[in-house]
């Protein structure tokens, strides 16, 4: 009862309001539709009328508050090619009715406590309303009483997001892993495909899958285990590469593709996990040593520089710039670990790279100085248009997924200006991001809902560089996230699907011999 009182604060009883709503809708339809579509519109209007006259909302109370929708899709910016934003209401209504209205057309959806928007109608509504907005009205019957909540908008952006999103599905554990899968989701609908499954590869761990040039024809991930290696996909041809050459600290860990597809830049790390004793912390993962290497995939040759494998500094999270002429990476002076873990702070540095000669430059520039800025940077990602560098900032260390304070920041590479993305960041860890090929969208893993289970959120960056409120990847069943015990790790966008699946990886793992880098 208290909950209802809270919801209905400043509520106005409006016996006629549904009829008013329908009346307005009818007027709008009559005014806004052409003669050609008038017949169609009248039919739809009659349908809506019948719908309401058959046990629809009556004696509706109007709430001045937004409905308690989950996921939080209130006033979000969405790409015109996203899957239906199905949602549920958290106040356990008996019935809900939702109208989604564009400038010409609308969709009416009914459900118990959740709705599933029809895919086809949704797609055409989005394309009709590109660069415009959709008005969402939610009616809910709570304790036998109908409520009309404050309407909200979905701002439809003509800029599309890359259609394919790969991620690793894993339980957010500590040291022991169970079932790990790399999946590819078509974000325009709800189709998901498994690209790799450790059940098929003797339970071995697999790291996250990344694309080159946002293209499904170029991608890679590290498959660990006895018969593992870095799986490189080039035009559907799968290679298995042992990326640990003599003298390297470890196999390749964090990495990125050069725009040419010929090179990959990687860190090599000695990684140590430790458990926090305090309630608000969970796991601390840090490197006791880390270096950088570039691997030439054409010749299987490792390229490095002595200052990038210096034992006095840690280097990690390397990426290429959009034009491939620079390597951005994180660097920190070595400290005693774990005792001085809180003093371990990484800066953003860059060093030149000559793709023609396959040479790393000699001068390192610092773009973001951890000492001055008072934080530690992880996971650099350069936007494909070359304008921005997106990264995560934590208080200390190199493992943001268990740092509640981990937030994204956006650096304008032309002006050096930094946007702290207050509109984007949540109360828990926001990290592991990836750009869409048009540089208008990025996706990131956020633990904002519960602090443990990461989910992919999409964020729009408009032409002026302003970030909009993000929204979570829609699911056919909006309750899916509630019961899912997996985290979505390293979401990575691609314009096209990858040309392999889990069975191909099974074959590569068991049958194909690994190439050795030199």
């Amino acid at each position, binding site marked *: 009862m208290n909950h209802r009182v809270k919801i209905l604060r400043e509520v106005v009883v409006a016996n006629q309001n549904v009829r008013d709503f329908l009346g307005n809708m009818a007027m709008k339809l009559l005014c806004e539709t052409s003669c050609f579509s008038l017949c169609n519109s009248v039919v739809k209007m009659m349908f809506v009328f019948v719908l309401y006259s058959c046990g629809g909302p009556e004696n509706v109370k109007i709430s001045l508050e937004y409905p308690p929708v989950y996921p939080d899709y209130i006033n979000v910016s969405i790409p015109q090619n996203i899957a239906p934003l199905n949602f549920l209401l958290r106040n356990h209504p008996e019935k809900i009715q939702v109208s989604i209205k564009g400038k010409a057309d609308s969709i009416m959806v009914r459900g118990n406590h959740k709705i599933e928007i029809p895919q086809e109608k949704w797609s055409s509504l989005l394309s009709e309303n590109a660069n415009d907005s959709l008005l969402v009205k939610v009616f809910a019957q709570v304790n036998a009483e109908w409520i009309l909540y404050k309407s909200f908008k979905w701002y439809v952006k003509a800029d599309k997001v890359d259609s394919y999103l790969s991620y690793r599905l894993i339980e957010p554990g500590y040291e022991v892993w169970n079932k790990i899968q790399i999946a590819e989701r078509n974000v325009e609908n709800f189709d998901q495909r498994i690209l790799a499954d450790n*059940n098929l590869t003797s339970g071995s761990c697999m790291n996250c899958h990344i694309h080159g040039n946002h293209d499904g024809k170029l991608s890679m991930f590290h498959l660990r285990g006895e018969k593992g290696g870095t799986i490189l996909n080039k035009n559907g041809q799968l290679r298995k590469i042992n990326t640990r050459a003599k003298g390297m600290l470890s196999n390749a860990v964090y990495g990125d593709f050069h725009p040419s597809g010929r090179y990959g830049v990687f860190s090599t790390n000695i990684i140590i996990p430790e458990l926090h004793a305090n309630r608000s912390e969970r796991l601390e993962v840090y490197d006791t040593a880390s270096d950088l290497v570039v691997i030439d995939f054409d010749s299987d040759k490792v390229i490095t520089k002595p200052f990038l494998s210096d034992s006095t500094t840690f280097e990690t999270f390397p990426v290429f710039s959009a034009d491939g002429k620079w390597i951005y990476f994180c660097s920190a002076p070595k400290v005693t670990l774990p005792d001085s873990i809180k003093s371990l702070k990484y800066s953003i540095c860059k060093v030149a790279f000559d793709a023609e000669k396959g040479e790393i430059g000699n001068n390192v520039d610092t773009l973001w100085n951890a000492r001055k800025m008072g934080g530690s940077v992880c996971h650099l990602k350069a936007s494909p248009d070359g304008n921005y560098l997106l990264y995560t900032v934590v208080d200390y260390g190199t493992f943001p997924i268990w740092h509640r304070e981990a937030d994204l920041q956006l650096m304008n590479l032309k002006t050096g200006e930094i946007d702290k993305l207050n509109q984007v960041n949540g109360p828990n860890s926001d990290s592991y991001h990836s750009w869409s090929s048009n540089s208008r969208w990025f996706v990131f893993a956020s633990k904002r809902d519960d602090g443990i289970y990461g989910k992919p959120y999409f964020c729009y960056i408009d032409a002026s560089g302003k970030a909009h409120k993000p929204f979570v990847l829609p699911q056919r069943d909006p309750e899916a996230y509630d019961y899912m015990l997996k985290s979505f790790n390293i979401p990575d966008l691609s314009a096209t699907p990858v040309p392999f699946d*889990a*069975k191909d990886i099974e074959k590569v793992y068991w049958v194909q011999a690994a190439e050795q880098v030199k």
Partner: protein
Amino acid sequence: MKYFSLDKLFSLVFGLVVFWFFAFLYPFHLNYQEQYQMFLFSVDYFRSFFAKPGGISDYTGNFFTQFYFYSWVGAIIIAVSLVLLQRAVWFISRKLEAKSVFFPLSAIPSLMYWGLLCDENYLLGGLIALLWVAGFITTYSILKSAKIRMLFVWISIPVLFWMAGGAFLLLLLFAFVYEILKRESKIAELSVWFVISAILSYAIPTLCKSLFLQYPLREVWIGTNYFRFPVNIPISVGIIVVSVVVIPFALYYLSKFIRKDNSKTLIAGQLIVIVLGGYFLISHSADMSKEEVMAYDFNCRMRRWDQIIAMADKKTPTTPLSVTCLNLALAKEDLLGERMFNYFQKGIGGLMPDFVRDYTIPMIAGEVYYHLGFVNTAQRYAFEAMEALPDYQKSSRAIMRLAETNIINGNYAVAEKYLHLLQKTFYYKHWANNALATMKDEKLIAQHPEWGTLRKYRTQEDFLFSEGEKEMMLGVLFKQARTNRIAFEYLMACTLLTKDLKHFLQYFPLSESLNYRAIPKSYQEALYYAWVTTNKDGSRDIPYPISNGVKQRFQLFQKMPGQANTPSYKNDYSDTYWYYLYFVN
């Protein structure tokens, strides 16, 4: 008594013996199995099983396994299942015209499966799969027309493959031999039927694998999880599965050698073989030492501290895990300092076991960390134990612990997620509803006898947990909550078990905040020993109130020469810290 009723009486007695075994001799194995699964009444949960060949058997097995929470219900389920299998084998045998005198031998597959179920890693789903297959074979054997029987096999191949996994091949095997024996069809017809059946049997699993099943081929063919480790299917499973078909045919052939259908001697002989063989098999399959550890663990999980101590009083536990449970029970009952050396102790492994990447040890060790107030460590251990489950199941016990630890830590959103899952279970629904109600009110959590206390005890300062420095961790924990008596007693127990008297003496004054009425016995023994050995001239009085009894016993202990294992030492001093100090390595 007529034989038809004798065979039913035999089944009844067999069932009762199985029930008695699991209900009274082996109940904690059933509780153990129940905790490593979480049957959800949800469509998604069903779908996750239905999507895999043999998954329906696993789903049905899990459905029944949830009732193992009450071991007597589990015992009924197992008894009924084994009796059903025996009856099915006997029914099939009779359809093959086996003589009724052979009914005791029809229990062989059930008896062997009983032996398997004594191992906690064999799952009920395997037995269910076998029952499905036996059911299909029974149906097949009822059909009178040869053509209908053949058609039935073709239809059954995909259906049974999906229900019971690779065990569907038994139907084909049985049908093939059956049709040859019956000779109701022409050889050509039979050959064509068999070839088509064989092609279907090979093609369906292979096609499923290549088209949509993302499981290793071996798993596709086996299907059902007979064993908790899907990659290792012991040969014994294969033998038992095949015996369901072999026994009826064997009885059919044996019947040819028997003229009389009512030989009492033969029945008695078979019963003797079955009873003796069964006794040999079950006594060799049952692991009573594991049962003991499981009993300690279950009582620990249910917070039955007095029962744990009573168990130890009857028979002192000797395995590190059961000693771990006992020490926790003693600490919970404020008796650790007083009585820990009354029982077998062997180092710190029986106090706070180290983390191991499996699903048993972290679950038990996690109980210790939880009750001490190391809430994050307890959470980790529960999570890791669940992740280590080789059959990818979720553990209801681990999910409960994750919910509890997150409530204590104030992470309500994630606690709610776990509680919503538990709301979809049969046994934990009520607990989850209560927890959800409690979670809405901070006062209720503060007043909660366990969560409220642990919230006070948990660490306030952050530090990286170091398993190798348990003593230091306990020190930090106690320093932050001076009323955490369990932490203090574990700290002292750590020093005593590691024979580190220097730190024992250093930490002992911390007990002031706990207002002990008298110094616990083992502390007195350690204090007195330390005092006597460092003040040999006896010029000063010991500054602690040591009882005269302790002083006198120590004087006698000192005077008594001999070996640790001599009866006098063991009888008189094995309950003292001095005995541990001198003779336990």
